[in-house]
């Protein structure tokens, strides 16, 4: 930490969930934290959102699982994870020990599977909140993701909020006609907050081999390329639900990007793809954000949400 934090209020409160600062790490871009321990002091992070957890182990997709695109990347990991039980036994204790708030991202193929994961995490020490990744094909209709349908979203969130002992954040996908409709379904189903947004569905083709660059044809687009879409989604949702706390994400690379998300209406942010290129990205971004606050003489980060000039 080089930047001057004196008389700055960095801590944020998202509907009761407290983070020492607004900069978290995004699910699937920080694994369970271990890989980053050599590079940074995890206790300096606002929080860690772990790779999505399923009830049973998920193997993930065959390679190639990644491809670069202009200012972005595509991925098709396939939500590979060892399952919630293995996570709780082998990963969670170490992570909690680092002294960083942990958000558990959960995923499933049916409302029941989501509930199983939430149930397994009931009262798990150190887990301050749950992020529900609804960008996952719904077994009842595999052509659709839960996130693309208000009813499916409502079902999953109602189930999870019933069993979860922690506050629930619903993670929205940008690939919908009206993201506010999905947000409304989640809010009505009792979500405490929202995470905006997940990757956008994209595709790339290798013109030398005539093959798709991902083994799965399509995949999730992330990185700075999608930031303008993420800012728009955060703005739309925050104006529709001013009292629902939002974790903004999508292409964050600098401290100014953090400010842009908070101005759009987010209460905290998650750094994703940037972690891959710079293991210390989250710390650099926090430093830059603190310098920005000092330069603009903003003493309390939560002020930014109300500072945008949008008439």
């Amino acid at each position, binding site marked *: 930490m080089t930047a001057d934090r004196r008389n700055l209020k960095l801590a944020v409160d998202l509907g009761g969930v407290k983070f020492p600062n607004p900069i978290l790490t995004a699910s699937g871009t920080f694994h369970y934290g271990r*890989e980053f321990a050599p590079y940074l002091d995890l206790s300096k992070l606002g929080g860690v959102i772990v790779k999505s957890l399923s009830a049973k182990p998920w193997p993930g997709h065959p390679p190639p699982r*990644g491809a670069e695109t202009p200012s972005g990347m595509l991925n098709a990991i396939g939500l590979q994870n060892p399952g919630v039980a293995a996570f709780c036994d082998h990963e969670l204790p170490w992570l909690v020990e680092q002294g960083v708030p942990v958000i558990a991202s959960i995923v499933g193929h049916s409302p029941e599977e989501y509930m199983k994961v939430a149930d397994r995490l009931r009262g798990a020490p150190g887990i301050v909140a749950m992020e529900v990744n609804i960008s996952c094909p719904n077994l009842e209709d595999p052509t659709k993701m839960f996130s693309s349908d208000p009813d499916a979203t409502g079902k999953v969130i109602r189930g999870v909020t019933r069993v979860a002992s922690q506050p629930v954040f619903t993670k929205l996908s940008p690939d919908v006609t009206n993201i506010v409709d999905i947000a409304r379904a989640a809010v009505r189903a009792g979500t405490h907050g929202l995470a905006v947004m997940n990757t956008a569905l994209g595709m790339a083709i290798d013109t030398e081999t005539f093959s798709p660059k991902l*083994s799965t044809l399509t995949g999730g687009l992330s990185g700075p390329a999608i930031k303008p879409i993420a800012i728009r989604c955060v703005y739309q949702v925050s104006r529709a639900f001013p009292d629902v706390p939002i974790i903004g994400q999508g292409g964050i690379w600098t401290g100014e990007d953090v400010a842009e998300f908070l101005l759009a209406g987010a209460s905290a942010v998650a750094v994703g793809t940037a972690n891959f290129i710079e293991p210390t990205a989250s710390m650099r971004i926090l430093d830059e954000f603190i310098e920005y606050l000092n330069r603009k003489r903003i003493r309390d980060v939560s002020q930014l949400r109300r500072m945008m000039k949008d008439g």
Partner: protein
Amino acid sequence: MSPANPGAWSGPAEVFAYRRLAEPYHSLTLVAPEVCSRAAPGQFIALRMPDDRSLLLRRPFSIHRVDRRPGWAGTVEVVFDIRGRGTEVLSRLRQHAALDVLGPLGRPFRYPKEPTNCLLVGGGIGAAPLLFLAEELRGHGHRVDYILGGRTQDHLLRPIEAKRASLTVTFTTDDGSSGYRGVVTDVLAERVRATNAKVVYTCGPVAMLRAVARVCAQMKLSCEVAWEEVMACGFGACLVCAVPVRLDRGGDDDWAWARCCTEGPVFSASRVHWERVEESGAPTTTGVGG
């Protein structure tokens, strides 16, 4: 610049030299003492693209050689051929240019405990890590022989240095422009017998690794393969670099995806689940990311 331990070192390195090698190959030598001092053969470094922010991801490159001359800032050399925009950008770098480096990364080749005859098998640019390996093996008192293959004479990576680094070298070229006309596996069994090799180290295209591994299995030789899979992070965080491996209990259905960047890039050939290795990424279901 975190003193990453056991992690890799991350920071800016200065280009000490750029050299154009035989036809398709380029060489970049970087001043990176922290990487140099810890590097082992088979490990790689991940280079960030300078200037152009549209090229988001680091590019991984095997450590070709290190120079640890005393009283001299350690350097690390990579060799590459031009595949796309990133390697093209790298080929335009000249002395004193700055480049952000992350490394050394990954699991290196393992050496035999006892003095052993080792055979190195490299194809095309895949031979990149083998010179470094040869030097280290000999330093540890092992005999080193070398099979170096390529499409044409020009595609034989550093043939002179290969000669110097090993007791015998056998060249193979697809077009016969140099050495034996054919591929490395055509001469492999014969060279194993002639050199009485007990361990084979290989890297190159997947098809070649597969063929070498098959021969080694038949001849009951231990074999280590250096793998190449698309990567995003290089240090275990993204799960992009999936390689199918048998689990310790080893049944055919008892397998999982290993991370090439941390559990590899060097794998024991017997651990790779070859039946599940796709040689072309034939599409399966459609993915949604995550």
